[in-house]
C-alpha cells in the first residue's frame, strides 16, 4: 500500500499548503458532496491547515443520510417479511427510521446481515433457497453498478429468492436542485471521485456553464484534497470555471462506459425523495421493467405509516450545507453517535458524525 502512503506524505503536504496560502486571496466557499471527502477532511484536519478565508461545507454526499424517512421505513419494514434475510451495507444498520431501525429489528430477532458486497448476498440466497434474501440498495452511482452486475448474475444463475430494494440516487441532479434553491452561495464544488469513476466529468458541465462555478473531481487522500482545493482557488482567481479532474488515476472524462451500460440495463431513472431536498425528478434509480421480478418493492407489501421526522432534527439543513453540525441545538447534547437522532450522526460518512468524532 505504498500507493496510499504517497498521498499522505507530510513532506509533500507542506509545499502544497504553502501554495494554497500564497494563492488564496479572497474568501471562498467550497462544498464537498461525497461522504468519503467529508470523513477525509475531518480525519486529517484539513480545515485547520487552510487559511480562514476558505470555508469547506458538506453537502448531500452521504447516501444513507439523504435517504428519506419513508424509504428508511420501507427498508426496515422488509425485516418483517416472513423468513426474510435482509442484507445491507453496514451504514444502514443503526440509522433510525420513523419508528424503528434495523439494529432494533435485529435485536428483536429479525435476520439482518451486513454484507460487504451485493454478490455475497446473492451467494447467501443461493445457499438458502427457502428464504427470501432482500438487499437494501442505498447508495449513489458508486455502488449501483455492483448491484446491477449482481442482478445480471442472479438472472444468469436463475436465483429466484434474491430481491433488491432500490433507493439508489444519482448525484448531479441533486446539485442543480441545491443551487436553484439559492439558499447557499458557493464558489465551487469538490466533486466525488468514486462517483465520477463511473459517470465521468461530463454530467457536471452544467456547474461552470449554468452557474459559473468552479469544479474539481478529487481523490480522497489528504494530498488529493489539498491539490483539488488549490485547483479550485486558481479557477476562481483566474475566472476560468470548468470541470477539472484532479483524481486522474481513477477518473476519465467519459467515465466507465461498461458500468454505465450495465446500470442502464438494470435500472431506470425515477423521481426520488431526498432528505432535505425534497422530490427531485429523475434522480433515483428503480429496477427496470425487465428486472421487475427482482424488485422487493413489487414483491413485498411495503405500505408503511406516514413517516415522522425526529423532533428538533435538522439533518435536512445540514445536508443542504446551510447549517453546520455544531449549530444544531441537538448536536452532542441530545444527539451523539451512541444515541443518534438523525442519520447524519449515525452514518460513518455523515457530517455530524464526522464533526463529533474528529472534533474538526
Amino acid at each position: 500500500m505504498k500507493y496510499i502512503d504517497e498521498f499522505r506524505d507530510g513532506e509533500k503536504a507542506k509545499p502544497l499548503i504553502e501554495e494554497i496560502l500564497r494563492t488564496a486571496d479572497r474568501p471562498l466557499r467550497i462544498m464537498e458532496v461525497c461522504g468519503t471527502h467529508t470523513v477525509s477532511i475531518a480525519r486529517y484536519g484539513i480545515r485547520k491547515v487552510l487559511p480562514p478565508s476558505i470555508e469547506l461545507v458538506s453537502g448531500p454526499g452521504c447516501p444513507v443520510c439523504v435517504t428519506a424517512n419513508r424509504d428508511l421505513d420501507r427498508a426496515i419494514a422488509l425485516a418483517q417479511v416472513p423468513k426474510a434475510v435482509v442484507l445491507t451495507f453496514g451504514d444502514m444498520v443503526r440509522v433510525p427510521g420513523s419508528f424503528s431501525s434495523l439494529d432494533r429489528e435485529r435485536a428483536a430477532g429479525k435476520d439482518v446481515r451486513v454484507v460487504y458486497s451485493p454478490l455475497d448476498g446473492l451467494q447467501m440466497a443461493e445457499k438458502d433457497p427457502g428464504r427470501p434474501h432482500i438487499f437494501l440498495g442505498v447508495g449513489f452511482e458508486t455502488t449501483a453498478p455492483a448491484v446491477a452486475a449482481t442482478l445480471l448474475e442472479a438472472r444468469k444463475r436463475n436465483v429466484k429468492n434474491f430481491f433488491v430494494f432500490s433507493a439508489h440516487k444519482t448525484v448531479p441532479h441533486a446539485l442543480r436542485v441545491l443551487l436553484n434553491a439559492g439558499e447557499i452561495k458557493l464558489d465551487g464544488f469538490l466533486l466525488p471521485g468514486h462517483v465520477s469513476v463511473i459517470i465521468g466529468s461530463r454530467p457536471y458541465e452544467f456547474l461552470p456553464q449554468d452557474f459559473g462555478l468552479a469544479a474539481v473531481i478529487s481523490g480522497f487522500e489528504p494530498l488529493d484534497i489539498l491539490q483539488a482545493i488549490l485547483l479550485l482557488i486558481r479557477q476562481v482567481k483566474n475566472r476560468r470555471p470548468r470541470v477539472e479532474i484532479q483524481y486522474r488515476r481513477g477518473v476519465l472524462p467519459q467515465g466507465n462506459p461498461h458500468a454505465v451500460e450495465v446500470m442502464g440495463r438494470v435500472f431506470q431513472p425515477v423521481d426520488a425523495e431526498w432528505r432535505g431536498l425534497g422530490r427531485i425528478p429523475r434522480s433515483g434509480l428503480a429496477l427496470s421493467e425487465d428486472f421487475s421480478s427482482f424488485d422487493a418493492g413489487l414483491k413485498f407489501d411495503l405500505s408503511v405509516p406516514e413517516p415522522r421526522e425526529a423532533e428538533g432534527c435538522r439533518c435536512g439543513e445540514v445536508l443542504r450545507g446551510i447549517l453546520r453540525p455544531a449549530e444544531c441545538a441537538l448536536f452532542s447534547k441530545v444527539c451523539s453517535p451512541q444515541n443518534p437522532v438523525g442519520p447524519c450522526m449515525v452514518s460513518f460518512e455523515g457530517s455530524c458524525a464526522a464533526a463529533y468524532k474528529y472534533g474538526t
Partner: protein
Amino acid sequence: MKPEQKKSPADDRILLAHGSGGAMSHDLIASLFIKAFQNPVLDRLDDMAVLEIGGARLAFTTDSYVVTPIFFPGGDIGKLAVCGTINDLSMSGARPLYLSAGFILEEGFPLRDLEAIIASMQKTAAQAGVQIVTGDTKVVNRGGADGIFINTAGLGRVPEGVDISGRNARAGDKVLVSGSIGDHGIAILSSRSGLEFSTRIESDCAPLNDLVARMLEVSRDVRCLRDPTRGGLSTTLNELARQSKAAVWIEEVRIPIKEEVRGACELLGLDPFILANEGKLIAIVGAGEAEKILAAMKAHPLGRDAALIGEVREEPEARVILRTPIGSTRILDMLVGEPLPRIC
C-alpha cells in the same frame, strides 16, 4: 415528547454494539454494573482487580470468549481465551500463575474441534508458564449457544514495588506500543465468509506476560499498561486519558500498521485505530526511562516493531489528540457502535 426524553432504540434491548468494547460498552458498564457492584477495587476500572491477601498482592481477572469463527488465521478461541486472561493479568505487572476454564458447549458441537481447542489452550498455557487448575463444562440445547463459548479467570502475583494502573499517567510521560495494530481485527473479519485477501493476515494473539516481565526488569518506571483489545488503540488510549485525567498526544505517522492491514482497512472503510488486537500492549512510561524500555521491548520477539508513538500532556484533559500526517490535529475518539464497512 421533548427531544431530551426521546428513547433511542438502544434503550430497551441489548444491541451488539453494547459488546463492542467502545463507548456503548462503557456506558452500559457505568450505568449498570458499576452502579450495582460498587466497591473500591472495581471503581479503579482496570482490566483486573489487584487484591491484598495475606500480605501478597494478587491480580484477579475474568473474561469470556465468543469469537466467530472459532478457528482463524493465527489462532483459535482456545488460544485467545488463554492469552486474553494472561494479558489482562499482565497489564497490572503481575506474573500470571493459574487459570480457570469454563466451557459452554452447544449440543452437536464436533468433538474433534473441542479436542483441537483444548490442545491449543494447553500449548499456550504451557508456553506462558501458567497452569489451568479448575474448570467447568455446560452443554446447552442446539441453538442455545453458537458452538462454543469459553470463560477463563486468572490469578497472578504482583511483584514488590510494581504499581501499574490506568490512573498513573502524568504529563511528560511517553506512550509506547509494542507492535503493529489491527492485525487481529482484520484476521477475524477476513476469515468471515466472503472476505479473502491475497495476503493472509494472521491474528497477533499471543501471551504478553514475558514481554511485560522483560520491561519491568529494565525499569520500574512503567506507569500504565493496557492491551488494546476490543475498541482498539483509540478506545484504550481514551480510557487511559480519562482514568489519569490527562491528555494523550500521539503522532499518526509513528503508529506501526502493517501494509496489508492498512490496505484491508482502505478497502473496507475501517479505521485501524479501532480494530482489536490480541497480542499488543500500550505502555505509558516515565520519559527518562522510555528509550530503555523501548529497547527492551524491541529485543523481545513480541515487541520487535515496538514504537514510541506520543506523549502525555496536561491539556485537553481526558482527551486523545492525534497529529495527522499533514501536520494538522484532531481528536481520536472511542469506538462508537460496531466497526462496520462503508457504504460508498
